[in-house]
C-alpha cells in the first residue's frame, strides 16, 4: 500500500549510489531484494517505480526484484525450513521458539550502469 513511498526511497538511494565518474552514464538496472514477509507487492512496486522515474535520470531503468523466501530456524532443534503458509511453528519439533532468518528483506543490492551516455529524456 505504501509502494509509492518505497519507490521514492529506492530512487533516492540509487541516485546517491552513482559514482561521480559515472554521473553521465546510463543506469540500466536497480537490483532489489524483497522478502516474502515484507508488506510489498512486487508488481505494484514496479509500477510505482516506473511512475516516479518518468522524465528523470532514471527513466526506463529496470527494477529487478529478487523475491526471498521466508526461512526459519528453530531455536530448540536448529531445524531450518522454508515457511510457505501462515504457520510459524517448527516443522520438526513443533516448537514455537523460531527465528525468521530470511524473508523480511527490502534491500537495494546493487545498481548496474552501462558505458553509454544517458539517453535523451522523453
Amino acid at each position, binding site marked *: 500500500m505504501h509502494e509509492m513511498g518505497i519507490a521514492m526511497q529506492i530512487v533516492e538511494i540509487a541516485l546517491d549510489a552513482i559514482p561521480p565518474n559515472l554521473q553521465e552514464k546510463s543506469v540500466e538496472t536497480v537490483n532489489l531484494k524483497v522478502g516474502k514477509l515484507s508488506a510489498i507487492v512486487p508488481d505494484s512496486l514496479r509500477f510505482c517505480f516506473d511512475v516516479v522515474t518518468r522524465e528523470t535520470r532514471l527513466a526506463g531503468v529496470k527494477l529487478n526484484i529478487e523475491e526471498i523466501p521466508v526461512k526459519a530456524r528453530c531455536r530448540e532443534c536448529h531445524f531450518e525450513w522454508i515457511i510457505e503458509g501462515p504457520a510459524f511453528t517448527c516443522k520438526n519439533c513443533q516448537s514455537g521458539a523460531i527465528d525468521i532468518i530470511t524473508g523480511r528483506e*527490502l534491500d537495494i543490492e546493487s*545498481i548496474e550502469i552501462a558505458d553509454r551516455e544517458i539517453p535523451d529524456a522523453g
Partner: protein
Amino acid sequence: MPVKLFRMPKQYHHRDFQKPLHSHAHHDTDTASQKSGAHIIKVVRRVLDANDIMAGQNRKRFREKGVFVLNMMSSPGSGKTTTLVKTLARIMPEIKTAVIVGDICTTNDADRLAISGAPVIQINTDQFGGDCHLAAHVIEKAVDDLDLDTIDLLVVENIGNLVCPAEFDIGEDARVVVLSVTEGEDKPAKYPLMFRECDATLLNKTDLLPYLDYDKDLAVSTIQQVHPDMPVFEISSKTEDGFEPWLQWLRTLVHNKLHH
C-alpha cells in the same frame, strides 16, 4: 486538554543523515566491478534505512526521558480508540500517559481521547495523499509538542491498517494489535506480518460473541500458529470485561522500563 492537530512534516531524505548505518562506501571504486562494458555498483542498503535510523533516534530519546512507548495497531473499526479511552481511564493517573493518534482525516479520535485528560496529538496524513502508516519521522516531529519529562507512557494509535504499519519501526518498546471478533477468525493467517511483529493481541468486542457465529478458539489458535506464545487478551472495550489482565501486562512493561 486541548487537542493538537499535526500534519505530516516533509519526508526525510537519505541525505539528511550524515552517516549512513552501513559502512559500504557508495563511491568506493573497489565496490564497482566492470564486466562487458557495464559497471555493477554494490549498494547493499535497506530501503527503509532512513526510517530505521530515525526510529533508533526516537528510541534513544524515549530511553533518556524514561518513557515507555506502545504502538497500537489494527484494521479500521476494530475498537482501538474505545479500548484506549477505557484503558486510559483505568491506568491514569497512576501511569502518566500521552497519546499520539494517526488518521488520514479528522480529529474525531483525538477529541474522544482528550476526555481522559491525557495530552493528545492528532496526526493527519492526508497532506501527501493519505499515508497508510505512521513513520518514525512523523513521530519524531509530533513528540516535539509533548513534554516527555512529565509522562511515563506514550501510546501511539497507528493508522487503521493491518498491513503497512507492521513494516515501520517508530522507536516503540512494544506493539499490540487489536483484532475484533467481527473481523473473521482467519485474519492472523491473512496478515501474518502484523501478528508476527506484535507482542500481544487484544481480541476485542467479546460482548458480541453471543450474536455471532464466531469461533473464538479457532481465532486464538490461528493467532498462536502465526505467533506461538504471544499473549492473547480477550476483552470487551464496551463492558471492560477481561481488561485487568491486559492492564496488568501493560503496567508491568511500563514499570520494568521505568525502574530498570
